[in-house]
């Protein structure tokens, strides 16, 4: 069963300090098919993260449509959050929980009785088997990002959003993390929408777009 994304005429502006409106997204349209992996690249501050938040339903749209189709039914972005995984640039792990509990969190939310076991499995997949009881604040940036990816993938999302997942990592760690994330997404058949400024990474996706002046143009 396929979950596809359709974006049409999406516009989003922000208000500057002096009161003027700056359009970040301008009448943007996009279609992402099930299990398709796409990348969005662009300069810093061009609105990549905002676009991702709008697509994932983490932020309300101002105008235009973001909808998901599944079995001939249409859903708003805010309704598909339970089917999504999200990897943030700043990880956003809960400091009061250890790595295992952070990963188990979305599984427990869904009432999985074997949440901890599944979480341990995903952490092992991410190469963190020995650090799963460690407090997240004691982990390195790369380790924290791997915990965040495990948290996003463990619910086997139909669509995975990743916002600069390697932005804070060194080259080697970034490669490890991205390999794990792509493998996880392929394994679960999830669509992947990735925001990055790394063109090399973007080229590894099925399609890549550049966000500029609020519009997406294909990258070649």
């Amino acid at each position, binding site marked *: *069963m396929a979950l596809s994304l359709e974006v049409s005429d999406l516009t989003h502006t922000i208000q500057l300090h002096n009161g003027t409106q700056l359009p970040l997204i301008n009448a943007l349209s996009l279609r992402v098919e099930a299990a398709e992996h796409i990348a969005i690249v662009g300069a810093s501050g061009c609105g990549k*993260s*905002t676009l991702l*938040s709008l697509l994932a*339903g*983490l*932020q*309300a749209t101002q105008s235009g449509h973001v909808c*998901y189709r*599944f*079995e001939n*039914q249409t*859903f708003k972005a805010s*309704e*598909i*959050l*339970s*089917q*999504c995984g*999200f990897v*943030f640039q*700043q990880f*956003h*792990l*809960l400091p*009061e*929980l250890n790595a295992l509990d952070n990963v188990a*969190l*979305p599984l*427990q*939310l*869904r*009432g*999985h009785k074997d949440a901890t076991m599944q979480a341990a499995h995903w952490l092992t997949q991410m190469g963190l088997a020995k650090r799963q009881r460690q407090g997240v*604040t004691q982990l390195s940036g790369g380790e924290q990002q791997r915990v965040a990816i495990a*948290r996003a993938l463990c*619910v*086997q999302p*139909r669509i995975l959003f990743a916002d600069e997942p390697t932005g804070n990592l060194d080259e080697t760690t970034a490669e490890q993390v991205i390999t794990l994330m792509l493998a996880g997404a392929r394994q*679960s058949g999830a669509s992947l929408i990735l925001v990055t400024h790394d063109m090399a990474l973007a080229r590894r996706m099925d399609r890549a777009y550049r966000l500029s002046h609020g519009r997406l143009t294909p990258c070649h």
Partner: protein
Amino acid sequence: MSLAQTMTSDPVARHQAMSPIHALRVFNSLLWRQILQGKYWLTLAALCVLFVYLLLSSLLGQGVERFLVQNLQSTLGADTQVTVRRPWQQAELDWITTHATKSSLQSQYRVTLSNHAQHQSAILKAVDSSYPIQGDIHISDSHGLDARLMQQGPGLGEIWLEPRLAAALALELGDTLELNGAPLRVSALLLLEPDRILEGLGSDMRAMVSQLSLSDGELTPHLNRSLMLHDTGLSAAIRQFQSSAPGVQVISKSLNNYPLAKVWERVQNFLGLLSLLIVLLTVLILWLCSQVQIQPLKKSVSVLLACGMERRMLPALAISAGAIILILSLIPALLLALLASYGVSHLAQYYVDGFTLYWHWQDLLGAVALATAVYFFIALPMWLVLLRGDIRLLIEQCTEKTHMRWFAILSPVGLLVALILIYTDNWLLSGMLLGGLGLCVVLVLFVTWLVLKFSGYLMPKRWVLAHFSMLLLRKRMLVKLVQITALGLSVTLLLLCINMGRDVTNMLELYLYQNQGNVFVSRANEEQKTALEAFVDRYQGSIKEMQPFQLAQVTHFNDIALSERGVQPSDTQRRLEQPVNLHWHAEMPENIRLTEGSWDTSPSQAGVSVDHEVFIELALSLGDTVHFDVAGERVSATINSVHQFKPGGSSVTFWFVLQQSRTPLLNGPVYHMGSIELNAAGTSAIGGLWREHPQLRLVTLDALLGKIRSQVRALIALVMSYSVFIALLSNLLMVAAIRTHMEKDQTRNGLLLSFGLSQNQGFRILLIEWLTVTLIPTLCAVAAIYSFVDAFYQQNLAMSYQGSVLMMLVEALSIALAIAASGILLSRKQLCRSPIGLLKEGQ
């Protein structure tokens, strides 16, 4: 059908539907971890104190209040006393009969009682067979002065004399004296009547007879009184009666003008104010906590939302979080309140009669509901933000929209106004307090703006760090304003509490009559005084005061004989027909104040100060000469001043005080008047002393003073115990204010250190910053309090504010410096840590 449901119908469904139970379970487990990590201790502590206060008030409040009011009202010996200083009119007696369920009539006469050659003026109380209608008469059947309680006055042909009157007349129990030719047998010594407090602790000697023992018309009473018991709800009728019957004095529980009623009213007002302050302080603490401690909760919920939790589950989460926080603070509070209330009631049963613990489940539930409402109202803005805000902004801890920020600021104000609307029964008090606090906020905002805006122009340019500190404060003005305002409010409340608590306690202590012993000695010669001193030593008591006097007969004013002066006949003039106590003192005694003239001790002319009432009733003028006959010798003095009793010191005053250090008649007999404080063993043995010196004139005031003192001590204890809550909450508020600062400053301190600032420079910045954020609110608090404190005292406590602005300033600065020192100490620890650690934690 929802997407989750649709997808679970998928044969290869990988998602289970998210149920509220699972969301709640995960959220509660997260919250519990945060609680165990101590992230909510301040909120829990503040709520716990509020719960303890509210629960204790519910458990003990009714019992304590009922006990105090009943005891204070019992000083009347009736529900209502109606007094006339003329014969009764039939309409007045009819009104009394109609409205009273039980009543008693009494008349009081100024008489001179005689026993052979002994004569003594006294007040004779003639009572009917219904007397007393409330309480007991304390009498003694022996010289041992052991009290026996009587529910009826003397029988026909009997008279009860106060011990010193019996001494003055040299009468023994069983002896007979004549009053207008009728023989009266001394059947007991009169110690105390239930309506005695109203008649004060005067030096008039007292006796009691049955009305039936007096022949009609032979004596004219100077006072007629009716004691009434009646149903409640008569206040309007009593007021109407009082206004329609001229010359009638009504003292009634219903009119709230019984002895100590004003004291109780002040205490009640003060306690009411403290209750208001306790709720106010809790709201402030919770609000400040919500600024800091809300972040972990907000982050957890945001992450859960990002992990797919639906927003419609948020109300359940909010209720669950509230319930957990409230239950965790309620359980220890309930245990503490129960223990404390049982402890208090247990102690009270030992020390006071009639104290009962009143259990009112409705009140307890009301207290819990109030605290719950306070918490939910403070937490509401955060949950609204979560319910309506973008998840991305929430998770990135971005600043909320302006209208939500205003809502978060105004919600505690709205809550306070709502609480006052619902609970206050003293609008003036609440209004004045809120007005004062409002003034403080306005002052704080204005002065902070002024200082931050213009301090740069006033400081020399070489003060680089000071300029930099002010710049930092200016750039973070919004964050700092929250803290400065909170500190301003807390210092205002604390100062107000300290000052009012001290003044109310001082006022109450006046009513402990600490300078007044429990045995009053109205006349003791030198030999008796020596015996008395030895007795006091034996029983480890203390002589509170002993004032010397000589017996003096006023003979002439300005060479006109007393009897020939053409003034209106009065009690004073009649009293002056007998010798009075002539006192002398070089300096003005501390317990009087002059209403006219001056204290003149020039040796050229003997001066005398005259009591104000005597001065008025005898139509005297300054400069008049008074001639006394002291033991047959003439002593003359010029009236230099007029004096009045000033409460707070000794209770012994004299009508005539010679302004000199020497005895008026050097070789004349000198007596002493004063009071001694004896313990229980001493008071029970006083009869022995009296048997050895039957002419010693003393009266034990133990029962009378004991009653007043125990009530006033209970009031002081009540005021003190309320103050404990204020002290606790004030400290929590300060910690909350400091912590708000600390958490928000962590990142800044990390950044400053990363810029290469030395620890010493960092410390100087901290010093300047903390002094600014503590001194501004402190000075504003003093200014705000000073502007309304006098009116506040006058309106709410019927007292004038006696404190000095300097003293208040010293107190305020001490508080400010204590806060600044704690803040600097805690912040300094941050400067000793690595910048990266600070930045990481501050995120």
